[in-house]
């Protein structure tokens, strides 16, 4: 049995060659599962050279067909030889699974379906193109949104966190936040494990600095108070998003996070006069690749770098930060929360001290300072009809939890719903 998977204009084409018996099926099923992205709606099976197939093969085709049918898609078969065609016919599947004589015909058919689905979306909302992606905006709330800051990034980055900087958070009160924290029964308990964290809809996801590099996903079952989240730095959104951008990258490689923010800032200059240079966003989307960092040690006073510098200084960086520049999680779902600061904007309208508390002072090449955390999930079907909040809830409730990271600006997103809050004020506790 030989399996090949490739992408042709974004459509997954799976080639099955040789003998697909009960054993080969157990080998093929996980491989097919792996190659399926959360936003795949169409799959072409090329059976050229498949000389034998049992009902286990039909089961594979059928399982995938059901999966993508639930996403308004389907599978198409091509180059079906005499043997598999007879088996399909005996089982009555030659009438219900679309069979094409060539790969081109099968691809043409599924692309017709993809095209009509995106046409419907286009008609509903006009799109603009920026940075190699299409943007359509849906208004949400007119009420001004603000950021609430606890602690300061500078204290964190210089590893000067003391016990009195830690306080417990009521998770149920926070819809979107990112920061540095830990779960535990008290301040003393949590100090050594402070790590990157975010809260989404009352759940806490964090990366303990316990040396295991394994994130933890905590859904509080009622407010029993036994386990609490302690944070030393926390940045949370107060108020609702002002609008949601539906973003679709033109190419397979997706749009980088910094390009996404750049586009939103540029479009805001034309469309949103209230944008004063700071944005908060939450994303539900499908990634083309995640590049990330994670703090390795709890940045508490006492473990501060000997040279008194920041843990992000080049000479301290490797000791403190885990960096993953490999593009990971292609086709997985992601939920992010973060902020972007346009350093070229007139930021004088914001509380200077509060702004300093959230700005790491590391602007990227585009003059933006970004800080985003993301949770990666697997197996949450992408559906452009589902709204942002429901999409996030679906990830939290049904998704297979994979990872949580501080995202590098080079993380690439293929399609997404982006909740945007044009921040009117930053409040420090």
């Amino acid at each position, binding site marked *: 049995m030989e399996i090949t998977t490739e992408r042709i204009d974004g459509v997954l084409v799976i080639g099955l060659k040789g003998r697909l*018996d009960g*054993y*080969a099926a157990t080998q093929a099923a996980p491989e097919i599962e792996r190659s399926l992205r959360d936003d795949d709606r169409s799959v072409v099976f090329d059976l050229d050279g498949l000389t034998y197939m049992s*009902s286990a093969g039909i089961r594979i085709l059928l399982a995938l*067909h059901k999966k993508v049918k639930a996403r308004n898609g389907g599978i198409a078969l091509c180059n079906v030889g005499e043997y598999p065609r007879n088996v399909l016919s*005996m089982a*009555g599947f030659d009438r*219900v699974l679309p069979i094409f004589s060539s790969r081109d015909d099968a691809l043409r058919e599924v692309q017709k379906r993809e095209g009509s689905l995106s046409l419907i979306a286009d008609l509903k909302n006009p799109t603009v193109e920026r940075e190699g992606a299409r943007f359509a905006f849906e208004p949400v709330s007119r009420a001004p949104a603000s950021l609430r800051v606890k602690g300061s990034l500078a204290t964190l980055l210089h590893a000067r966190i003391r016990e009195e900087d830690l306080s417990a958070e009521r998770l149920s009160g926070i819809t979107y936040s990112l920061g540095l924290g830990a779960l535990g029964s008290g301040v003393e308990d949590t100090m050594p494990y402070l790590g990157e964290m975010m809260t989404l809809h009352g759940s806490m996801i964090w990366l303990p600095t316990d040396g295991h590099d394994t994130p933890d996903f905590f859904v509080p079952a009622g407010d029993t108070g036994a386990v609490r989240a302690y944070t030393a730095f926390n940045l949370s959104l107060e108020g609702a998003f002002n609008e949601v951008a539906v973003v679709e990258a033109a190419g397979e490689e997706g749009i980088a996070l910094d390009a996404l923010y750049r586009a939103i800032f540029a479009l805001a200059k034309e469309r949103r006069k209230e944008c004063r240079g700071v944005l908060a966003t939450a994303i539900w989307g499908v990634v083309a690749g995640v590049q990330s960092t994670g703090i390795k040690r709890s940045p508490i006073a006492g473990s501060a770098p000997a040279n008194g510098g920041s843990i992000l200084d080049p000479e301290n960086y490797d000791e403190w930060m885990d960096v993953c520049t490999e593009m990971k999680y292609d086709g997985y779902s992601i939920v992010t929360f973060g902020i972007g600061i346009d350093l070229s904007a007139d930021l004088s309208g914001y509380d200077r001290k509060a702004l300093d508390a959230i700005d790491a002072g590391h602007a990227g090449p585009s003059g933006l300072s970004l800080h985003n955390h993301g949770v990666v999930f697997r197996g949450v079907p992408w559906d452009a009809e589902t709204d942002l909040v429901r999409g996030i809830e679906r990830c939290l409730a049904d998704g297979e939890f994979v990872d949580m990271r501080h995202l590098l600006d080079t993380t690439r997103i293929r399609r997404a719903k982006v909740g945007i809050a044009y921040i009117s004020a930053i409040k420090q506790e």
Partner: protein
Amino acid sequence: MEEISFDAVISSLPGALASVTGALERLGVPDGAVRALELSVDEAVTNIILYGYPPSNGRIWISCGVEGGMVRVQIEDEGVPFDPTGAAEPDLEGDADQRPIGGLGIHLIREMTDELRYERRDGRNILVLGKIL
């Protein structure tokens, strides 16, 4: 009469199928009947391995023979008693996404064979698949 026996694990299947088709060819069974019995044995054996035995336990015995214009393959196992001849016919109509996935294997066996007999004897399931020559 050729006899084959192997561990009831799914990775044994390709080798077992090759042994069965080899034995049938040596018995002079025509190609069409060999292919039909190969698929039937695949379905029956996969079912025994996946559902008949606890994981990685037990063996399966297969013998092949030709007698009176009929080729027969006999499959024996010591797994839980299961009579596939009594299984209900699957629904072959309706949309692909609504059709149940189970029951296809036994349906294919029925389509591919002219004789299908089952008995439980001495703690063994004994399934005989026959094809008229």
